[in-house]
């Protein structure tokens, strides 16, 4: 062991850089006008984490309200409706959709390509500002007294139908504008990513040499570019409908509310894949790295991401089986929906196969990855019940749906996000988090999820409708157990915030490659230089773990000497 340190390879010479992207220039202003993708990513990370805490706060509030069937535990009906609207809207538009791509993707994508920045740095900064404007508008909605339309903003309720006439309602105008703006932020991020992956790859890295995280981001970006404009237009039209009563969606003026639902889900179903695909990408990285195995069925995983993105566009009507959509359209959508299950299943099988004969290291990110497997398994499989059109009629808009999409959108996306944040934390901040606390929090998240959402499946099949501030006595036990689970989840998130912030000050300095991962970003220092790499990284397969050897906890993994001398991966063919 000691010998290894004496003969340190050249690339390990700079273990802890004194000048790096975080302190290359100083001052608040330099951050706000930065074009550096890493800084923009960190600003995104702060903003989406704030959104996560804000959305989580509302989740805890509404779960508390549901402790008792009839009484207003802490909220009136009106405020309960606002709570679930804000929870949904903040989580969907401000956290889950931009969460992984805009923060982790922004940071990691150029680095995994060995590039210096994203293709369009100004556009990147602009999209961050758009995001922040959206965030501010949502905070504005809160200040103005909330919004109670549900995150789906269905007309005619949202545009002012019903007994609570709202001639012109500022909160709603804010919401439409916010989602519109956030949509454009998302589109710009997406097209930036695609352009970067096509044009800034090193000469000797083909598409099939990219880490699977990038394939996932590629598929995500395709959806962002092609689906998001539709929701932009839809909410724009709704805004005009609300202000001028043009009669496209509002039946009072001859409009058709079902048309809105078509438009909305044309985006919002693919949006589910905007949420989950990046998490699947993180998952591929974590599983491979922490079992030290080349990922099994690389091409299948890569193309299944694209397949999910493509099929995602043709299944939106399964949100509308009982909305007044025609039965013929419903049956076709049901059939198409089953096709999404196949690429998702392929991914899961391949991840399991990757573990085979590996050396599985239960670091915190890996615990998240394993939790992902289980939670996504449940989330995905329960999707089959909802794809089945006969069952969907019964299950639509019940707690079964709530439990299903939380298992996917939160069970999978949140574990993917947290797994990714822990995995890349050393790279992004140059500090190690407390591993023990990390593991405890990961296990708490896993338990919290199950306790929260498992009872909801049964409540749903027994007929508990969603968005109910009051419920029948028979559902009391389900709700109370669920609320306890939400508290566990909340505690886990707070614990994470605590030890992650603590690590920034007191954490051990991170080596360039603490995990022995093989994608290019680990050849940079932790945290990386302003230009990302001090020297051109050696292009190698993203899962060629053989090129790295373990030195010590202090120095992490370093590249083997042959690799540095030849400048080539030890693994011949990919």
């Amino acid at each position, binding site marked *: 062991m000691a010998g290894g340190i004496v003969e340190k390879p050249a690339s390990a010479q700079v273990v802890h850089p004194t000048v790096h992207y975080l302190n290359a220039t100083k001052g608040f202003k330099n951050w706000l006008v930065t074009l550096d993708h890493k800084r923009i990513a960190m600003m995104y990370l702060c903003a989406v984490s704030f959104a996560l805490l804000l959305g989580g706060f509302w989740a805890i509030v509404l779960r508390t309200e549901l402790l008792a069937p009839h009484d207003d535990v802490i909220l009136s*009906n009106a405020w309960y*409706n606002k709570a679930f609207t804000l929870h949904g809207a903040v989580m969907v538009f401000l956290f889950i959709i931009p969460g992984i791509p805009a923060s982790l993707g922004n940071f990691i994508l150029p680095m995994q390509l060995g590039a210096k920045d994203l293709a369009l740095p100004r556009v990147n900064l602009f999209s961050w500002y758009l995001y922040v404007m959206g965030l501010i508008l949502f905070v504005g909605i809160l200040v103005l007294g909330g919004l109670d339309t549900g995150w789906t903003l*269905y007309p*005619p309720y949202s545009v002012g*139908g*019903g*007994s*609570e006439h709202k001639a012109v309602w500022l909160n709603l105008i804010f919401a439409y504008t916010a989602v519109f703006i956030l949509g454009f932020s998302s589109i710009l991020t997406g097209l930036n990513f695609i352009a970067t992956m096509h044009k800034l790859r090193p000469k000797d890295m083909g598409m099939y040499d990219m880490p699977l995280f990038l394939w996932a981001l590629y598929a995500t970006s395709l959806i962002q570019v092609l689906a998001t404009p539709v929701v932009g237009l839809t909410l724009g039209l709704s805004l005009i409908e609300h202000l001028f009563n043009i009669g496209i969606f509002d*039946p*009072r003026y*001859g409009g058709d509310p079902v048309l809105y639902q078509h438009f909305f889900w044309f985006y919002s179903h693919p949006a589910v894949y905007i949420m989950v695909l990046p998490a699947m990408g993180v998952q591929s990285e974590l599983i491979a790295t922490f*079992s030290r195995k*080349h*990922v*099994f*069925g690389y091409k*299948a995983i890569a193309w299944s991401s694209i397949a999910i993105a493509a099929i995602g566009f043709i299944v939106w009507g399964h949100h509308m089986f*009982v909305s*007044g959509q025609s039965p013929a359209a419903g*049956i076709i959508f049901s*059939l198409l929906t*089953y*096709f999404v*299950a*196949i690429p998702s299943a*392929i991914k*899961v*099988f*391949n991840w*399991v196969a990757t573990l*085979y*004969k*590996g*050396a*599985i290291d239960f670091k915190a990110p890996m615990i998240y990855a*394993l939790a992902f*497997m*289980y939670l996504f*398994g449940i989330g995905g*499989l*329960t999707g*089959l019940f909802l794809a*089945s059109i*006969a*069952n969907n*009629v019964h299950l*639509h*808009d*019940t707690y079964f749906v709530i439990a299903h999409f939380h298992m996917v959108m939160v069970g999978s996306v949140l574990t993917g996000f947290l797994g990714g944040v822990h995995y890349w934390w050393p790279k992004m901040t140059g500090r190690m988090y407390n591993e023990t606390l990390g593991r405890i929090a990961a296990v708490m998240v896993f338990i919290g999820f199950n306790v929260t959402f498992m009872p909801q499946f*049964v409540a749903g*099949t*027994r*007929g508990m*409708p*969603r*968005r*109910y501030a009051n419920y*029948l*006595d*028979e559902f009391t036990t389900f709700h109370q157990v669920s609320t306890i689970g939400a508290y566990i989840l909340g505690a886990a998130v707070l614990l994470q915030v605590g030890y992650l912030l603590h690590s920034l000050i007191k954490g051990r300095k991170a080596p360039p490659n603490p995990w022995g991962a093989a994608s290019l970003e680990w050849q940079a220092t932790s945290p990386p230089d302003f230009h990302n790499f001090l020297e051109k990284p050696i292009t190698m397969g993203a899962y060629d773990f053989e090129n790295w050897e373990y030195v010590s906890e202090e120095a992490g993994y370093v590249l083997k000497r042959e690799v540095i001398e030849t400048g080539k991966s030890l693994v011949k063919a990919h």
Partner: protein
Amino acid sequence: MMADLALGNFAGLPLAQQAGGSFWFPPQASDVAAGVDFTYDLILWLCIVFFIGICGATLYFMVKYRKRPGHKEEATSTHNTRLELAWSIIPLALLMVVFGVSTYWYLRIVTPPSDNVREVEVTAKQWNWTFTYRGDGLPAGKSYMVVGELHLVRDEAYQMVMTTPQNDVIHSMFIPAFRVKQDCVPGRYNKLWFRAIKAPQDDGLEYYDLFCTEYCGNDHSLMLARVFVHDTKAEWAAAVIEAADIGRLDPVDRGKSIYDQNCKSCHTVNGDPSTGPSWKGMWGREEEMADGTKLTIDENYVRESVLQPGAKIVKGFPNAMTPFTWGDQTDVAIEGIVAYMKTLKD
């Protein structure tokens, strides 16, 4: 009739005690319920097999290949086309079977029988359900409106002709025991049919629940109704006639109920003007009319405004109200409205 696939009945658990049925579901009270539950169980067992496979393998690998001193990873092949094709095609084939079964039952749910279907008009409003019954043993030429109670005869097919006023919002009718659901969308008719083969009393229940499952505003969670299933047509007719008789309510409750159903969308009771003037404090007050005359809001004014809303309009409000009548119960209804308005005097 259905193969017994259901996961055992956990009726012993406190979770499932109150509403009857199995662990997963409320009672199977319509003729499609058993089929829908069969589809559910079919998928459930498929899922259980796959889930145990995935999680079992994961757990096994987690233990067997955990990182420990002396254990090192071994390179294995990085892909296997045959294996990958197998685990794509087999699930797809299974899913197509599920699709077939599911679609069969869905078509049963959406296709009403060609004859002998009784119609019930359903009006969904914020936040109550009104069911209108006609004919079929009820006195000819009369219609009976019942709020919040759906009455059916066992083994008869019923078609709900559902609508929502144009200035209202989307609602959705959901009867868990029948496994059916359909949105009520303003500006169109939607239809939903079902046949009850079981009555709530068979399971020791008083009624089946009917929920609104499309979020519709403040009291969405209170927009419930009760479904009663009668054994004979005669019992049914008697129950409908009794339920429709608003005279049995005391005047204030009657007025409140009428207000909730018909007036709420344009008149508040908290003092805020809406499309029409608020009823709070209106009774007995002197109001200026659109034509400049002044008059006191009394019984005559209320009666006239209900029957001919355009006759005298309070200044500052549009002429936007449609006339209301309640058949031979109009007088009783207006008596109720007056009684209710009196309670809002201050």
